């Protein structure tokens, strides 16, 4: 990488003021393709046709640069390629391949830009282009931000079409016929006389064909795979216990390990006594680690038992010790000095509210753990040849950087295999657990080590979704919402997270206000201000990031105002809405839920909307009062993804997002006492169970003109739709999550 890349590596410029600078840094190299990561290393029997397509005697392998964490990334990447390459769906093989800058994610930076997804002006376009440049220069190979589909949509179809064109050209040379006489079908080039030349045989010749650029893509009307239900490639393995996750990794002679470190984040380790642990059956070694110790043993349970037997002397946390003190620190950020952004400022809010506010309210959301069901785990193996890491990760290249720093090894002697994850929800955007596995492997050179966290370690060492506070005011006039002023204070996820990656984000953190400032509404006097609270607990991206809490603030405040105006929540939102795809999802959810139709006594509906990650999503939640408490009876969600690539997976993701949003809204919170989270397992940090799960109806629309990802956008509207339904059913406004602190759920 050139000088420009080095500059960008440490200064991650994401503010309006720095966009112009982006031209100077990056434009020159945007057109320079990266070399193929595997080109020089592959055995002769394997032919790489593009950075994504390998062909050998067994068939086609797709390198999938985005990691599988349950969202269906592997299958959708394969489908995009297979569609253009014309290979049979069930014959395509996938491999995460080596982490490499060529596999940068061009779409990941878009959400951090201070331009709304609905903004199609030239400045927004320039900023998005700049985001792609930064991502490319830095080789940001990251899975997250619902960006897999937007990033891969053109790139992998292009890869398939390019490889296909090369195979056709090779066949034309061999057969002595014109390329336009040839077709492709099921992994073969087919000649006019029906002779099929398998790709497996053509590939070595195709390699010598000049690689064409910008090959034409199929008309979507001709798609045979995309847009239709397809069986996930991993579905049989995941239904038979044969799928292998990081926690299932195994190698001959492997040792098992676990760790315990200070649950008071940032706190010192004053010392520990491992004399009991060291004498326990199966224990190989107790290893001091930053903040605690690891136990290497011959079995995971023995390692966990021994770790439990270590007596630690841990110092206090580096952050305020209690929930109250943590919220006080956020509440203290509503000052001019701490103002981080005011990206929405329409009309004259000050003047409108000078005549008196109809609603003044404060809302709060808690810290939340990711708690994927597979706890953090990583395999590391240090030998004379180098270091091998096998782990589920959303940031493979950063993990290699970390391992290189810890071992002093050059990066080309570190191999990382990215494994399927048993959930992540943003947790594996951190490499802390991989670092621990590397440190453990260092003390047993030659022996592979698999480290597995206990659930308790996982819950208390998360980088949670930050707590946040919002203060809202508004005014209604003539039965309409005339003014809405929302101020949100939260610690910066971007600063906390990127700081750990060695990056330095400048400018406003849009995560503090995303899902609130960027909504397509024409409220006459409308302002959203972000305040940056101090970093206390280290925080990170949690499924749907800032929008996860901000939609609760924005949509509950809006609902309060609509009720104060005496208007209908759906009609008033439609009236204010300025964006056609957003109107369409509101109308769809109204139709699906039969909005406005009478419900039985004690039942009511609530509505919420949020545009996040470029996807407008509207949800209606229907609650019923029962003798045992409030029951979430039904939920309806409509979202616009621009283009549906796999209807089954979209439905599954939409169900999952609604359940994630509702489940946490009901009862989840990380609370702090004595400097540490009070929740350690699923008994005190509850997730939605099947008995609480409502009937869920979903619809994916294709009104918008840009293809989008659906992993996150159905999360934000769920909590406010539920809170608004509770108000409609009971008259009670709950302005603080989790909701079960104030209402009993059945």
């Amino acid at each position, binding site marked *: 990488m050139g000088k420009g890349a080095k500059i960008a590596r440490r200064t991650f410029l994401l503010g309006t003021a720095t966009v112009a600078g982006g031209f100077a840094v990056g434009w020159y190299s945007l057109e320079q393709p990266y070399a193929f990561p595997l080109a020089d290393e592959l055995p002769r029997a394997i032919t790489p046709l593009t950075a994504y397509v390998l062909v050998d005697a067994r068939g086609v392998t797709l390198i999938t640069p985005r990691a599988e*964490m349950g969202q269906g990334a592997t299958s959708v990447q394969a489908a995009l390629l297979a569609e253009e390459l014309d290979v049979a769906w069930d014959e395509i093989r996938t491999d995460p391949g080596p982490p490499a800058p060529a596999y940068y994610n061009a779409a990941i930076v878009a959400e951090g830009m201070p331009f709304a997804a609905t903004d199609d002006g030239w400045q927004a376009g320039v900023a998005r282009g700049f985001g792609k440049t930064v991502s490319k220069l830095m080789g940001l190979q990251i899975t997250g931000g619902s960006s897999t589909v937007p990033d891969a949509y053109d790139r992998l179809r292009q890869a398939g079409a390019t490889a296909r064109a090369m195979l056709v050209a090779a066949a034309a040379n061999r057969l002595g016929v014109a390329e336009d006489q040839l077709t492709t079908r099921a992994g073969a080039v087919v000649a006019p006389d029906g002779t099929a030349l398998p790709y497996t045989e053509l590939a070595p010749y195709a390699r010598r064909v000049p690689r064409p650029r910008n090959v034409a893509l199929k008309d979507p009307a001709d798609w045979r795979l995309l847009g239709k239900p397809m069986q996930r490639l991993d579905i049989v393995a995941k239904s038979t216990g044969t799928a292998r996750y990081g926690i299932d990794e195994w190698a001959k002679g492997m040792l098992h390990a676990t760790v315990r470190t200070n649950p008071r984040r940032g706190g010192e380790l004053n010392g520990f006594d491992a004399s009991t642990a060291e004498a326990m059956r199966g224990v190989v070694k107790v290893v001091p680690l930053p903040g605690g110790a690891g136990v290497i043993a011959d079995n995971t349970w023995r390692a966990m038992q021994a770790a439990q037997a270590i007596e630690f002397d841990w110092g206090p946390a580096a952050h305020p010790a209690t929930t109250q003190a943590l919220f006080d620190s956020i509440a203290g950020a509503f000052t001019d000095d701490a103002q981080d952004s005011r990206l929405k400022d329409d009309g004259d809010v000050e003047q409108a509210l000078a005549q008196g506010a109809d609603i003044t309210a404060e809302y709060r959301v808690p810290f939340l753990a990711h708690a994927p069901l597979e706890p953090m785990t990583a395999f590391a193996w240090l030998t004379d040849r180098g270091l091998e890491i096998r782990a589920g990760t959303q940031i493979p290249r950063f993990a290699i950087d970390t391992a290189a720093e810890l071992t002093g090894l050059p990066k080309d002697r570190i191999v990382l295999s990215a494994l399927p994850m048993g959930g992540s929800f943003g947790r594996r955007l951190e490499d802390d657990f991989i670092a621990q596995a590397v440190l453990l492997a260092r003390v047993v050179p030659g022996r592979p080590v698999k480290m597995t966290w206990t659930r308790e370690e996982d819950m208390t060492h998360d980088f949670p979704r930050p707590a946040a506070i919002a203060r809202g005011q508004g005014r209604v006039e003539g039965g309409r919402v005339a003014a809405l002023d929302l101020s949100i204070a939260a610690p910066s996820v971007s600063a906390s997270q990127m700081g750990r990656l060695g990056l330095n984000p400048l400018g406003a953190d849009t995560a503090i206000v995303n899902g609130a400032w960027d909504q397509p509404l024409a409220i006459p006097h409308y302002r959203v201000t972000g305040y940056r609270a101090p970093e206390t607990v280290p925080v990170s991206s949690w499924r749907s990031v800032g929008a996860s809490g901000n939609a609760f603030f924005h949509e509950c405040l809006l609902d309060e105002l609509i009720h104060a105006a005496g208007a209908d929540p759906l009609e008033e939102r439609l009236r204010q809405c300025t964006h056609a795809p957003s109107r369409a999802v509101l109308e769809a959810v109204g139709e699906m839920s039969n909005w406005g139709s009478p419900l039985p006594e004690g039942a009511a509906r609530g509505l919420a909307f949020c545009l996040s990650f470029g996807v407008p999503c509207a949800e209606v939640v229907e609650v019923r009062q029962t003798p045992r408490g409030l029951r979430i009876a039904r939920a309806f969600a409509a979202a616009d993804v621009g283009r549906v690539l796999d209807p089954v997976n979209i439905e599954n993701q939409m169900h*999952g997002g609604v359940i994630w949003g509702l489940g946490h809204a009901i009862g989840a919170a990380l609370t702090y006492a004595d400097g540490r989270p009070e929740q350690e397992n699923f008994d005190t940090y509850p997730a939605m169970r099947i008995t609480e799960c409502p009937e869920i109806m979903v619809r994916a629309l294709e009104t918008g003109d840009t293809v989008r990802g659906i992993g996150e956008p159905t999360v934000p509207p769920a909590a406010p739709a539920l809170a608004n339904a509770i108000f409609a059913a009971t008259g009670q406004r709950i302005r603080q999550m989790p909701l079960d602190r104030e209402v009993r759920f059945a």
Partner: protein
Amino acid sequence: MKLTVNGTEIDIDVEPDMPLLWVLRDMLGLTGTKYGCGAAQCGACTVHVDGVAMQSCQLPVGDVAGPITTIEGLGTPDAPHPVQAAWIEHQVAQCGYCQSGQIMTAAALLAETPAPTDDQIKDALWGNLCRCGTYPRIQAAVKTAAQKMQEG
């Protein structure tokens, strides 16, 4: 200590208080059974002991009295159990990590209650947590499996 796992008798030297989960995963290499919480809170570790669904993370191996069936013994990719076939048909899994446990619980339910009501399905699967939110498909897959099994 003698155990019968998926029809095979096994003799292992292990302390009796080790949970069955870790015997299966770390000593027998049967990794289809998952660790999620270690406290019988999530159900990812569910196996059958004598046909009864049990959370193996809280079951000392010394207390196991009866043959053990794990997800690997229920069915295979080539010859899936009807519950697994229904899981594949409905494309239940997202991350898939909890699904071994879900399937084992569902299979035990259907062995006992061939035509469960919606509420019986929910009550049986209460203890199996899914963080991805696949519950609607789980519910549908259990119904399909029940129907297929009754049709024989």
